[in-house]
């Protein structure tokens, strides 16, 4: 049996930022490991994708991969879901049913939203992790299981331990190999790569050629904060692929709410990222910094309708400093030209 999962290291889209490369370097290091991995990351950062990749890189890849969200079940249901039950264990338990741990025998189980496991259940989970045996609900037999455990969480478990909401012993059991997925807004340089890949995929699935993307669309996407991370970006791209009528991705294809939010952010991310570490080209740091400075000042002047005191406030610099910087960036002429242009119009 070959793993029949929609995700593989060939199809997954990741980007090339230093932050995500660090994640994948770490994955390579732990690929031979059998230890528990605790994957922490905001919603939509790809915890389940990473869990699948960890499974596929492991020796267990030809055995089952079982993913279960612990947020879906109530306290009693989660026990029966994970460990199974015997006939008659509770009303409605008409036959024996294996739990997810048994279904994952020989393979990997991914316990997502582990932070949602109720305290009472955490003790039972800890016992399973320690003894590698389970007991079905209402059963007396102790069943040994050989299952690699991966856990996922949106919240900071350590913080929850401090607040008394998560058992410390279970935390240490889970946090053997900690892996943190960065939110998309912390790796904005990956946004163009990801959006291009997603758009290509969605356009091809409609039987169309991958579209041209107007540069301003990429800029808007890079300035938006993506609270739903890669999942939200993927959905935005699917939306565009379904709605675009002209074959080119232009600003009108982008959800207006996204534009409004992106418009409230200074365009710092628009400055081109540093070249890849594999390309030892020479770039002038002074020029780059001046470019960034000029972008920010232009934004602040625009946002404050040309009022320099207000602009200085937005940028949290002294009014006199702003004046110096404007001169330094050669924006003085620029600014006057714009102002006189407005007057003439």
């Amino acid at each position, binding site marked *: 049996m070959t793993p029949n999962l929609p995700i593989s290291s060939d199809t997954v889209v990741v980007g090339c930022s230093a932050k995500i490369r660090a994640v994948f370097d770490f994955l390579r290091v732990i690929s031979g490991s059998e230890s528990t991995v605790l994957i922490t990351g905001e919603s939509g950062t790809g915890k389940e994708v990473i869990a699948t990749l960890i499974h596929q890189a492991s020796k267990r890849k030809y055995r089952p991969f079982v993913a279960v969200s612990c947020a879906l079940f109530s306290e009693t249901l989660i026990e029966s879901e994970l460990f199974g039950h015997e006939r008659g264990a509770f009303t409605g338990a008409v036959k024996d049913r294996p739990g997810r741990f048994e279904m994952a025998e020989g393979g990997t189980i991914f316990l997502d939203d582990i932070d949602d496991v109720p305290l009472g259940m955490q003790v039972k989970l800890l016992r399973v992790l320690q003894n590698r045996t389970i007991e079905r609900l209402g059963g007396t037999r102790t069943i040994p299981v050989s299952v690699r455990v991966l856990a996922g969480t949106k919240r900071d478990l350590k913080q929850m331990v401090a607040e008394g909401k998560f058992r410390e012993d279970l935390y240490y059991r889970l946090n053997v190999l900690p892996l943190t997925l960065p939110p998309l807004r912390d790796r904005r340089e990956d946004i163009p790569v990801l959006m291009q890949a997603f758009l290509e995929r969605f356009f091809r699935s409609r039987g169309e050629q991958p579209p041209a993307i107007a540069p*301003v669309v990429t800029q808007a996407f890079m300035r938006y904060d993506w609270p739903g991370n890669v999942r939200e970006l993927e959905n935005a791209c699917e939306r565009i692929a379904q709605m675009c009528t002209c074959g080119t991705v232009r*600003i*009108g294809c982008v959800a207006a709410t996204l*534009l*409004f939010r992106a418009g409230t952010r200074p365009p710092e991310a628009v400055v081109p990222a540093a070249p890849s570490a594999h390309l030892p080209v020479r770039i002038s740091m002074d020029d780059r910094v001046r470019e960034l400075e000029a972008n920010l000042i232009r934004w602040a002047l625009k946002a404050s309708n040309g009022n320099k005191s207000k602009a200085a406030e937005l940028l949290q610099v002294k009014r006199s400093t702003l004046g110096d910087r404007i001169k330094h960036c050669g924006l003085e002429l620029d600014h006057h030209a714009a102002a006189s242009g407005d007057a003439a119009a």
Partner: protein
Amino acid sequence: MVTRERVEAVLERVRPFMQADGGDIQLLDVMGNCARIRLTGMCVGCPSAHMTLHLGVESALRDEMPDFDTLHIN
């Protein structure tokens, strides 16, 4: 209160994007709690873009001015 200035301030948040793509969003007039705008540029003929912008701009105006009523597009 719906004023020309406040409507302009909201439009100004998306205008740079539109202009960078060769289009524009112009405020024609403000009548009571309604406003009328004109969209220009490449996306004008696209029904999806039209709907997205219409609804998006209208809801942004309402966020800013709770008494805003209707946005008309010419």
